[in-house]
């Protein structure tokens, strides 16, 4: 047998994504679901797709969907990788509150905004690291490990703000939440950049594969010489970092840190987005862009409910109905039906 000598050429072409024809992308259940939800919105409100240019930025319901979906999309980017390792992070909502509280409190105490932002991101990293340590070093099951911070984190955030809504008028923080770049709201820009960067980092390096390997079989990963613990630490830390960004956006958006309500229950939306995006809660294969798409589906649905004029008692019922439809669409059962359709890809 000849020994392989592996020469390491710089990766010129995208390494993993398989060349799929655009049609197969369009027949993905997620894409169909998104289009369907958007069409329903359009039917409810004919001006839904209208986008105008106003005060140097785009303006319209579609932009609102992107803008309002951005925080959950950012959470979902971090959450995707956590879920890919067979974990879950319930604390992201609380971490959002902590990060917003940190930035707002520092800024109102006269600390320069860039420092405050960095500090907020650092707290997010720390929170994520804490989760990671609980999961790897203490080997606590992820749901419970992150439940600790979910419960205590909101308390910490309130400790920072002393229970009040800390209002600020710092232009940098406000810009993060409500500014615009090339006509797009900053949250959208941040989410897009983060999505592209995270996808590139994960797919151009070996990280993505290694994360998937850990998620598929942690024991085998150990036997194959993978540093599973370090990977998990990184993944949870990154989720904390994403949550911190989201927290900054949400605080900047309302010009204040609302420790009690910022990010409340958003962890569930983020998990839902990831699952709708096709990443299994059992770990393994993941896709960041699809998770972001999942977040957009959820937001399109929320926006649709808002403009539909239903009375708010029906919100949750409508939401669950849409989720159920998407789940049924995604299930193997309907996949089998789909394959029978002429023209659908094998």
């Amino acid at each position, binding site marked *: *047998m000849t020994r392989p000598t592996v020469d390491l050429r710089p990766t010129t072409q995208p390494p993993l994504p398989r060349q799929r024809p655009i049609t197969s992308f369009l027949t993905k259940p997620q894409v169909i679901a998104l289009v369907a939800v958007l069409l329903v919105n359009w039917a409810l409100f004919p001006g839904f797709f209208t986008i105008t240019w106003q005060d140097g930025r785009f303006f319209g319901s579609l932009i609102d969907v992107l803008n309002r979906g951005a925080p959950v999309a950012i959470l979902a980017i971090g959450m995707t990788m956590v879920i890919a390792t067979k974990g879950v992070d319930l604390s992201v909502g609380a971490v959002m509150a902590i990060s917003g509280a940190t930035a707002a409190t520092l800024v109102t105490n006269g600390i320069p905004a860039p420092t405050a932002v960095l500090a907020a991101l650092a707290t997010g990293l720390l929170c994520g690291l804490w989760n990671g340590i609980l999961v790897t070093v203490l080997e606590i099951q992820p749901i419970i490990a992150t439940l600790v911070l979910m419960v205590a984190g909101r308390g910490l955030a309130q400790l920072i703000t002393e229970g009040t809504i800390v209002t600020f008028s710092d232009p940098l923080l406000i810009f993060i939440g409500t500014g615009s770049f090339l006509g797009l709201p900053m949250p959208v820009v941040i989410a897009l950049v983060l999505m592209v960067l995270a996808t590139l980092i994960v797919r151009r*390096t070996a990280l993505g594969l290694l994360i998937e390997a850990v998620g598929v079989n942690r024991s085998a990963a150990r036997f194959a*010489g993978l540093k599973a613990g370090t990977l998990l630490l990184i993944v949870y830390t990154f989720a904390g970092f994403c949550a911190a960004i989201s927290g900054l956006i949400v605080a900047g958006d309302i010009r204040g840190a609302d420790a009690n309500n910022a990010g409340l229950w958003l962890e569930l939306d983020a998990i839902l987005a990831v699952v709708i995006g096709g990443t299994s809660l059992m770990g393994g294969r993941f896709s960041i862009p699809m998770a972001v798409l999942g977040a957009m589906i959820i937001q399109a649905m929320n926006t649709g409910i808002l403009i539909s004029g239903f009375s708010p008692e029906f919100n949750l019922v409508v939401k669950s109905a849409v989720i159920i439809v998407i789940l049924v669409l995604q299930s193997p059962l309907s996949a089998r039906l789909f394959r029978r359709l002429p023209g659908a890809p094998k």
Partner: protein
Amino acid sequence: MTEPKPVLEARGIVKIFGQHRALDTVDFTANAGEVHALLGENGAGKSTLIKILTGAYQPDGGELLLDGQPITLRDPLHGQTYGIGTVYQEVNLLPNRSVAENLFLGRQPTRFGMVDRKRIDAAAKDLLSRYGLDIDVRAELSEYSVAVQQIVAIARAVELSGKVLVLDEPTASLDRNEVQRLFDVVRGLKAKGLAIIFITHFLDQVFDLADRVTILRNGRKVASQPLNTLNTTDVVRMMLGKDVAFDHHPTALSGGPKGQVRVAFQNLSRKGLTPFDLSVHEGEVVGVAGLLGSGRTEVARLMFGVDGSDTGQITVDGQPVTIRNPAQAVAAGFGFCPEDRKLDGIFGDLSVRENIIIALQAKLGWFKALNREDQVELAGRYAEALDIRAADHDMPVKLLSGGNQQKVILARWLAIDPTFLILDEPTRGIDVGAHAEIVRTINRLREEGLALFVISSELDEVVAYSNRIVVMRDREMVAELDGDTIAPDAIVQAIAGTAKEARP
């Protein structure tokens, strides 16, 4: 012999996975009072056929008949109600439940609606004693070795089989004594008129036990006839579709260790495991023999850093190295094919290609990603070198047959260009062709200067490639054989030593 009486019959069975025809119009008949061996290469479709016969899969074509009546089996439970008991290839038991419960799940005796634990425990103890197993049946199954689990699975299936007993590679992890004991049980059942279907890659066992043989190749039946009309060469030829230069009983290697010391373990120990010294040279294979539970796997895990050692030093090429976890072992150029493939080896949902390159990738680090071309090339090379049969290297490895999965793990370690390779039962569940291939590969690797540490329960096999053999008993290295002293008989004597059996 009287006219054979068909019990379970399959006619024109077709099973399609995706675009792959795993079974193509296969006929199969299991007769009462007959042991029917089902043979074929890895991936030939044996396990798939079994799963159809027992109700785990639904066929895409063809029909099943039980005692001449057409039946449709919804699921294994349904199969059980017809008296079809099965041991599937991968041990399919519940690691979290007690041994007794594993034996009686689904048919626990109850009193006033409550499960009668005492009776179950007593019955389980009684049942296992027939297989020479005297263990605490209330302990969790996962506390026992693979071999014990295998026996439990067999005992369970035998109890369930009123008409048909299906054994898919039951002997893969058993030692000689246990195999003999199992065969005694099977012969007893045969005498009672059961139809027994038996899959194995050990041809001598086939000739020892079976009356009739059916051979599959690439999902098609190539032959089905009484065994007494055949000899080994015929069988192998039909299985592989060609003649192979196959030396079934290769002679021992002569000559001791070659080259310099590659790795040396000094005074390595762990709670309960007697400290040992061992050095492996370049171009040397150290074989390890011993009974089940004698501590062979434990030594391998210790060497690879899976379990932490209490004492001891390790040197590689004269340089001391620290190995506290597998990552450090891989960095030191070690490779390890673990015994439990499903649990510690394969990444079921990842592709064949990714499974092959993963260790290399882990060794290279996160930022030196192998690009797709390199991956394809590497995977292709090793798949070819080890003759891995997969329709496509992008398919999930869990869809491969058991033997091919084993080869994928071997390929993974070869890909890192190791200096020292630990193989724990590398040929378990591997077909004759591949078996010979792996033995040849081990020999070739040795010739190329690799140092190997190979654990195997097959004495013939150990003899075929080892320069030196370490014998273990009661978690202690008790003997070392080398050069001309290596012979199956000598090993058996060393193993026998004083204690007969060493089991938890």
